[in-house]
């Protein structure tokens, strides 16, 4: 994807370093990055909502996925870039540990952990984006919803795949079973990220990965960054397993509502298939994720119960903040995108609309 635009001194310093053509300038650019980052991390009011730090972390993480246009892939393992990630992550993880509500911990084991996760994810968390989509959202809001979701959904499943080589036994087999289905079971057209791209195109949106990153607020980047942080650190393997379980366990019912919302707006199956597919798929995945993945992991490694529950609760906590960002803007009659509305360069004819 293209390098995200500046949102402050840290993302700006990172961009300057990654695109710097002049080796002699590098030490200075590294020093500026280190200094601005240290200051920003020390002074941030709320790292979950910090546009500059979340954007910088998202850009640095992107080097581990599809890469950044015009940026040498060698930066992925550059010590200064890794140090930047570690510094932001440390504050980010601490904020999550401080703020994510923790229910009473279950005993390690498949039945106990699955039951605790079903209880945690079944609790109603208030206003819901899916109900709004189903009943009220305008065409413009439906497009904004897809733009927010595209930050993760165009690389759907990738952050959890990092955990595969970090697990073993029953938990590993479960994760591979889920991920294989996410990637379409070997059929490109069924890969969930491809299905999402098709839905975007159906609403006249650009499906280029990262195409809308500059338009989404920090909390949406934080939601994606959290998965990468959990997925790429072995010590957090319990959290990424719990995250996936909670994600799958809160997916079937909302996706039915999303599908209904897009049908209400007049879109046909080429747009709604993504959501309809998730209703059925995630009813399967949630059982495997809760029992074999999360539960199975705690049976194998009982010391990970707390992190499994933390990862699950963090998923619900951050995603409810991301949902609130949409609903707060919409109910105030405003756009939920940074910079207001969609750029006019985007083709706005809804290809899948019947009306």
């Amino acid at each position, binding site marked *: 994807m293209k390098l995200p635009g500046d949102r402050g001194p840290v993302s700006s310093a990172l961009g300057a370093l990654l695109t710097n053509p002049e080796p002699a300038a590098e030490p200075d650019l590294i020093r500026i990055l280190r200094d601005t980052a240290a200051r920003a991390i020390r002074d941030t009011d709320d790292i979950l909502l910090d546009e500059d730090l979340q954007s910088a972390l998202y850009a640095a993480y992107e080097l581990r996925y599809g890469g950044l246009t015009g940026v040498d892939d060698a930066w992925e393992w550059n010590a200064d870039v890794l140090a930047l990630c570690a510094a932001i992550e440390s504050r980010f993880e601490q904020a999550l540990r401080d703020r994510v509500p923790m229910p009473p911990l279950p005993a390690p084991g498949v039945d106990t952990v699955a039951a605790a996760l079903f209880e945690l994810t079944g609790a109603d968390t208030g206003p819901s984006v899916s109900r709004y989509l189903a009943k009220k959202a305008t065409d413009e809001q439906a497009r904004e919803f897809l733009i927010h979701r595209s930050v993760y959904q165009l690389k759907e499943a990738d952050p959890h795949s990092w955990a595969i080589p970090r697990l073993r036994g029953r938990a590993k*087999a479960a994760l591979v079973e889920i991920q294989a289905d996410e990637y379409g079971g070997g059929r490109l057209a069924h890969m969930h990220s491809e299905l999402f791209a098709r839905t975007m195109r159906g609403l006249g949106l650009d499906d280029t990965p990262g195409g809308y990153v500059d338009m989404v607020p920090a909390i949406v980047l934080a939601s994606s960054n959290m998965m990468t942080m959990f997925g790429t650190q072995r010590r957090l393997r319990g959290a990424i397993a719990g995250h996936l379980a909670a994600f799958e366990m809160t997916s079937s*019912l909302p996706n039915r509502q999303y599908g209904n919302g897009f049908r209400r707006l007049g879109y046909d199956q080429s747009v709604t298939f993504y959501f309809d597919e998730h209703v*059925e798929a*995630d009813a399967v995945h949630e*059982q495997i994720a809760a*029992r074999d993945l999360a539960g199975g992991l705690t049976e194998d490694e009982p010391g990970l119960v707390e992190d499994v529950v933390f990862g699950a609760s963090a998923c619900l906590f951050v995603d409810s903040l991301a949902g609130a960002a949409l609903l707060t803007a919409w109910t105030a009659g405003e756009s939920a995108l940074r910079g207001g509305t969609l750029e006019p360069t985007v083709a706005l004819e809804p290809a899948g609309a019947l009306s």
Partner: protein
Amino acid sequence: MTEQAGTSGGDATVSITACPNGPLLVRGRFEILAPAGEVIPSRRKTVALCRCGISTLKPFCDGSHKAVGFTTEPEAPTGQPA
């Protein structure tokens, strides 16, 4: 090796996992037939069959069992027939 219902692979044997308060997970090589005998196509290797009766995607589970508080007490068998 212990046979785990959740992880037994291979196409030869069909395994059915009874998920507490939820669907039946079916793995292996199977066909689901409609009453007249025609095959109900399945989009995935492992499927969840509704046993609460509420799903809108029957015979597949759509997660609705959670919304209606479906329970399978007494505890579903986990390997040995009761």
